[in-house]
């Protein structure tokens, strides 16, 4: 099909060169100047995400695995999909079965290619837990970059998605997060912003949650 490629590019080039369009300057000041101070950022993220049905669980570095387990137990969650090879995953599995924590939902590792357990993933998993790279105050969004240890579908297929957020990993805008961390130098297979549970308003403008992805998004804030 390279014939079409050359024809299209040739036509575009001829059209542009006959009537050149000088490239305008782009002034990013409107994004650069958007700032909130530290405490306000988290408050804003919570407010914006709560407005779209996100739930929050406040905890600490020392207690988060126990708090997550207690929360899921109280919700009647049967099982939790996790990435055993991440630092968080290792801690989770170490503490999950430790004394005093028995009786919680079953931990299911995402350790193999999806092809090996697609059916179970779609039909039998209640919740999935992932880490995040932080969150954005401007829009109330989590930054999630799936990895081989924390695959893409963990944050999508289970009915509940739990996302670990460190309270010091907050950004003002999407633009700042990507420029400060030089994302353009190496994008991952898939990068995501997630700002709430899956939703739709396609039936007469009435909001409904969990149309395809998670019905619940629980952000675990670790201070």
């Amino acid at each position: 099909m390279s014939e079409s490629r050359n024809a299209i590019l040739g036509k575009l080039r001829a059209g542009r060169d006959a009537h050149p369009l000088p490239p305008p300057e782009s002034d990013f000041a409107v994004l650069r100047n958007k700032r909130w101070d530290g405490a306000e950022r988290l408050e804003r993220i919570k407010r914006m995400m709560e407005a779209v049905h996100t739930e929050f669980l406040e905890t600490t570095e020392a207690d988060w695995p126990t708090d997550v387990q207690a929360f899921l137990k109280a919700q009647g969650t049967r099982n939790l999909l996790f990435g055993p090879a991440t630092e968080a995953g290792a801690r989770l599995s170490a503490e999950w079965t430790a004394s005093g924590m028995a009786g919680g939902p079953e931990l299911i590792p995402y350790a193999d290619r999806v092809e090996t357990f697609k059916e179970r993933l779609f039909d039998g998993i209640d919740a999935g837990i992932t880490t995040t790279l932080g969150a954005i105050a401007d829009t109330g969004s989590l930054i999630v970059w799936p990895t081989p240890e924390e695959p893409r579908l963990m944050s999508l297929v289970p009915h509940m998605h739990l996302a670990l957020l460190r309270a010091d990993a907050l950004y003002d805008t999407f633009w700042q997060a990507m420029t400060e961390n030089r994302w353009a130098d190496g994008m991952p297979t898939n990068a995501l912003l997630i700002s709430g549970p899956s939703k739709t308003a396609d039936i007469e403008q009435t909001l409904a949650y969990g149309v395809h992805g998670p019905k619940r998004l629980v952000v675990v804030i670790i201070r």
Partner: protein
Amino acid sequence: MGETSINFAKASSAALQDQQLRGNFRRAMDGLMSKRAVQFADTAEWNGVRTLGASVRLRALSKLPELLEKLEANCTKNGIQVHWASTTDEANAIVLSIMQRVNAKLVVKGKSMVSEEMHLNAFLEKHGIESLESDLGEYIVQLDEAMPSHIIMPAIHMNTKQIAHLFKQKIKEAEYTEDVAQLTDLARRVLRKKFATADVGISGVNMAVAETGTLCLVENEGNGRMSTTVPPVHIAVMGLEKVVEKLEDVPPVISLLTRSATAQPITTYVNMISSPRKEGEKDGPNEIHLVILDNGRSGIYADEELRNTLRCIRCGACMNHCPVYTKVGGHAYQAPYPGPIGSILMPQVEGLEKRGELPHACTMCNACVEICPVKIPIVEIMGRLRSEAVHPGDAVKGAGSHASKAEAMVWKGWSMTYASPLAYQFATALLAKLGNAAPASLPLLKEWTNVRSKPRFASRTLHALAREKGIPDV
């Protein structure tokens, strides 16, 4: 669709009779307009981000051929296979050949305007492949065997009751309910099975980043993520104008897009895909294909004024604010893109013979121009297309096709009369004497009197009256 011209006038007057439809649209659009206004309440911020967004789009257009080459090079480096299609037929053939190679039987589709332009579903079905829309609105419209009536909210023309009946009628396991949560849940159950078993996922592209070879997709439902992650093959289709230069160009455009479209600060998911599944990764498609479609866009691009049409980020705000669209709804336009943007885009893509009526579906009120987040001079282009429709030219396919001999003669006579004082005096005197006797059924006059009363001519001309009052005639 055949090559016959589309009759907007007839379809719109039918739509105007439909009280239910008018009510559905009115309510939805009123809500969207006021919610959007809240999102852009800070005028300085709106001006800043709008100017930035417009500059991002214009900068991309100023380097379009180079950016497309760069996009291709970076996608290829990342493992995404790039295809080029001059026409929708060619794009369909590319998609089909990929499907046939992997022996695909079931396809799940995310929302994509370009695939509507390609009539891809019908094409695939003809070749024995089931192509299922997975965006809830698109799914509803597909079940109803209808067309989307809005580019952001495809099923906006239907109310809950109508959708409840449709589900009951078309989905085997459906119980009748008007509960939106239950209806949504039913669609979830049906579609989840399909996501898990589909051979190929198809998506559109909101923006493609030349700098990094990244495809950006925004959505609320997660069906876009499902379609681009679960099936072993992902095919993305995009119009060639969708490229932006840099990754940092993405945030301002997304901000304008989501706030203008549905008045959300951001959609639930912003999905950025840069490669197929890599060694060691446990999910994601093994192959990604990007089909870049021209379909007349390179012709639009060649014209200095018309190329502004290609800035569009498909937010739909122009239709939400258009007094014509909000009254007649999207179906009257009988086009994948309705409303103001459709009225200028469709004639350029499909030719004025077929779509020459659409630029007339406009009151020239400028509401769309004021709202457009990337400052497209829609009304100017509308005027230009109106005149191209009746004047021979070579910029737009079918220019001159709407010229009518009678109309041309009338205008010619009019200009001659106005150019000569003597002819003017004679004509006005004649109209004062005989004008009122002219029957309303006269050609051209008939078009006017169809919906209006016939103009009444005064028995004496303004000049005569002035002379009587002693004002000297010039």
